[in-house]
C-alpha cells in the first residue's frame, strides 16, 4: 500500500507554516509546554469566521488550506483527520461553563466546536466536499489510523487524492492534569536541549500538519509513503525489533537501505531506551534525526515527523537542527519514521524518493 505525498501544510511551534522555509532558524523555548507559532490567519480565513473559531480550528483549517494550495488540488476525494484530545479549548470552555454555573445559562457554541470531527467537518464545509469524511481519536495511533484509512481508500480506487491531517491543541489545564500522572519533566528545560537531561518525563507540544496523498505520479510530488505499521503495547524490545523487521521485509527493503531514521526521542529516560536499542541493532550505518525538541510531545507528533521526512526528500537537505549525531549521507533515498507514545502506541512509516 503506497501513495505519494503531493502537498503539505504544517503549523507547529516552529516557523513551518511557509513551505519555503525548512527549519532554517529554529526557536528554542524556555518552558516545558510548547505552543504553535501563528501564521497570519486572516490571509487564509475571512475575519468574520475567524472571530468565532477556537485556536485549534484556526490552526487546523489553515494548515489544511496551506496544504491544498501547496498541492494544487482544489477538491480532494476524502478528508480524514486524527487527533488525541480533539478541540481542547472548546472542550475545556464548555466543561467549565457546566461546572462553574451548576449546569445553568449554557450556550452551545463551545459544545458544537468541541467535537473531535469539527475540523474535518469545517474543511468539508469550506470546500463543499461531500465525499468520505472521518476522524480517528486513538491516542498515539490517531494520525496513523487516518493515514492507513487514506492509503486503503487510494488502493481501493475510492479516492485519488486524500487530504489527511493530524492535529493537537495544548493547554495549561492539560499540562497541570497530566503532570499529575508524571508525563512531563519536573525540572524546566530549554526545548532544544531536550535530550540532554537524562530524567523522567518529556515536554508537551502541539501542532497541525496536513498532507495531500495521491495515487497519481506527478513531478510536483514530495515523496512516496510506502507503507506504515502500528504496534500496540509491545512487551519487550525484541517484539519491537521483530515487528519492524517484518515491516521492512514486507516492503522489500533491508535495514541497510534506510539512509535516515527519524526517531521520536522525547527526552524521557524511561521510554527512550528502545530507540537506542533499535538503532544499535538495525541502523548502525544509517543517519539519525529527531524532532520532539522542535514540536514537543503530543498524540499526533508523528505528523510533524512525516512532514520532515517529506521535505527532506523533496528538498534534498537534512536541516542541521534535527541531526542526532552522524552526518547524513549525501543522498537520502529511504527514510524510516519510528515513533512511540508513552511506550503504548508504536508506529513506523516508510518514506522514499518518488
Amino acid at each position, binding site marked *: 500500500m503506497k501513495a505519494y505525498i503531493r502537498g503539505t501544510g504544517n503549523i507547529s511551534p516552529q516557523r513551518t507554516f511557509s513551505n519555503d522555509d525548512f527549519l532554517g532558524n529554529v526557536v528554542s523555548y524556555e518552558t516545558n509546554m510548547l505552543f504553535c507559532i501563528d501564521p497570519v490567519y486572516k490571509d487564509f480565513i475571512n475575519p468574520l469566521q475567524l472571530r468565532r473559531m477556537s485556536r485549534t480550528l484556526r490552526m487546523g483549517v489553515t494548515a489544511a488550506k496551506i496544504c491544498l494550495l501547496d498541492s494544487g488540488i482544489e477538491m480532494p476525494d476524502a478528508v480524514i483527520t486524527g487527533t488525541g484530545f480533539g478541540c481542547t479549548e472548546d472542550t475545556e470552555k464548555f466543561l467549565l461553563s457546566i461546572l462553574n454555573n451548576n449546569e445553568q445559562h449554557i*450556550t*452551545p457554541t463551545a459544545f458544537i466546536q468541541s467535537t473531535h470531527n469539527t475540523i474535518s467537518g469545517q474543511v468539508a*464545509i469550506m470546500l*463543499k466536499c461531500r465525499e468520505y469524511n472521518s476522524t480517528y*481519536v486513538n491516542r498515539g495511533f490517531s494520525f496513523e489510523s487516518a493515514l492507513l484509512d487514506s492509503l486503503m481508500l487510494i488502493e481501493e480506487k475510492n479516492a485519488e487524492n486524500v487530504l489527511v491531517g493530524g492535529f493537537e491543541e495544548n493547554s495549561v489545564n492539560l499540562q497541570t492534569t497530566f503532570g499529575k500522572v508524571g508525563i512531563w519533566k519536573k525540572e524546566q528545560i530549554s526545548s532544544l536541549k531536550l535530550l540532554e537531561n537524562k530524567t523522567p518525563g518529556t515536554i508537551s507540544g502541539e501542532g497541525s500538519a496536513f498532507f495531500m496523498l495521491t495515487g497519481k505520479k506527478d513531478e510536483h510530488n514530495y515523496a512516496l509513503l510506502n507503507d506504515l505499521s502500528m504496534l500496540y503495547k509491545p512487551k519487550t524490545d525484541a517484539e519491537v525489533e521483530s515487528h519492524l523487521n517484518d515491516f521492512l521485509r514486507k516492503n522489500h527493503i533491508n535495514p541497510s537501505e534506510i539512509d535516515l531514521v527519524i526517531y521520536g526521542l522525547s527526552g524521557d529516560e524511561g521510554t527512550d531506551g528502545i530507540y537506542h536499542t533499535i538503532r544499535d541493532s538495525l541502523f548502525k550505518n544509517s543517519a539519525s534525526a529527531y524532532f520532539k525538541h522542535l514540536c514537543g510531545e503530543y498524540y499526533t507528533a508523528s505528523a510533524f515527523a512525516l512532514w520532515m521526512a517529506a521535505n527532506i526528500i523533496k528538498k534534498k537537505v537534512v536541516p542541521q537542527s534535527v541531526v542526532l549525531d552522524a552526518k547524513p549521507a549525501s543522498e537520502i533515498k529511504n527514510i524510516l519514521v519510528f515513533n512511540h507514545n508513552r511506550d503504548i502506541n508504536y508506529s513506523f512509516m516508510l518514506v522514499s524518493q518518488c
Partner: protein
Amino acid sequence: MSRRVVITGLGVISAIGDNVRENFSSLKAKRTGIEHINILQTIHKGILPAGEVKHSDEELLQLAGVSENTGYTRLALLGMIAAREAFISSGAKKGERKRTGLVTATTVGGMGGTEKYYLDYIEPGKTGDFVKYINSYDCGDSAEKIADSLGIKDFITSINTACSSSANALMLGARLIKHGRLDRVVAGGVDALTKFTINGFNSLMILDKENCKPFDKNRTGLNLGEGAGYVVLESLEDAQKEGKTIYCELTGYANTCDAYHQTASSPEGAGAYLSMSKALVMSGLKVEDIDYINVHGTATQINDLSEGNAMTKLFGGNVPKFSSTKAYTGHTLGASGGIEAVFSALSIQNNIIFPNLNFKEKMDEFNLVPVTELEENVRVRNVLSNSFGFGGNNSSLIFSAL
C-alpha cells in the same frame, strides 16, 4: 479485495437490556428504556427523559468482571460488556492465532470521569484518589481497556465522527478484512450519558421533554441514551470454513459528508441521499431489494425532515418499511450505529421488523409512515441502517441475509 465480510458475533447493552437476548425481548414487547434521568448526577435528574442503562457504575464493574476500579469509567465498562458478548458469541477465544483488531467509536470518551473530577485535575498541586481517572480523559482509553480485556493486540483504533461514529467503525473493520490486514475485527461503539452531552444538546434546544416521537409531525426533539453495540466481522470464507453462525453479510456501506452546516443536516438531505445511494450501488442491490430501513430517526425537526426527503428521493413512491429504534434506547450517539447494527442483524435473523414507538401523525412534507406494530414472519433479506452526525457525517450500512 473481493473478500465478503460477514457478522459472526453480536453484543449490546442499552436502556432496554444488558445483552442481546434482553434487548431483543424488549424490542418485541414494545418496552422502552426511556425514563426520567435517575442515575446520572445532574440538575436534569428526575426532569429530562433519557435512555440510561439501568445499573450503577458499581454494578457495571461487576457485570464487566472488573475486581478493582483502577480507573474504569462508565463508558469503558459499557464497552467492555458489549464487546465481550460479541466476542464470545462469535466463538472467539483469547489467544487464538487469528489476526484480530478492535475498531471502536465514541463521542464523549472519558468525559464521564473528567466532568466529575475536572476541578481537582486542574488545581495545581492537588492530589488524591481522582488521579486514577486522569488517563481515561480521552477517547482512546476505552479502546485500550476493551482491547486489553479481550486480549486484542494486532490492531486498535477509535473513531469519532459524532453520531455516525460506530457505523464508520463497522466500515473500517470490513475494509481491514477485505485488504487482508486482519482476519477478524470487533467493531462498534460506546457512549455513556454525561452532563457534558446532556447540557450540550439541551443548549441546542433539541431535547424532547417527553419521550421522543421519530418521524411524527409533532416531534419536538430527541432523547439521549447510553450503551454499547459491537459486532464481530470475519471473512465469509473463514466463517464458513470454521462452521460459524453467520448472522448476516455486510454487503454495502458508504460514508459521505453533507458539507452544509456544523450541526444541522441540509433540509433536502444531500449527504444522506449520497450515503444511502452509494451503499446501495456497492451492495449491487436494487432499491426494491431493501426490505427494511433502520432509520437514524432522532426525532429532531431537522434530522427526520432531511432523512425523509433523502429516502423519498432515493426510493420514490416505494419507500421500504422503516422504523427508528431511538424511542426505545434514546440516541446513544457514538454507540448508535453499533447498537442499530445489532438490531438490524436481529431483524434479518428473525424475519422481524421492530416498531417505531410514539408515532401518531405523519409529517406534512412527505407521505412516510413508519412501522408502528411489531411485524413477525415478514421476509427481511436486506436492511439499510443510517447514521448521521454533527459535522455533516453521513454513513449508511446494508446488511443482507446469506
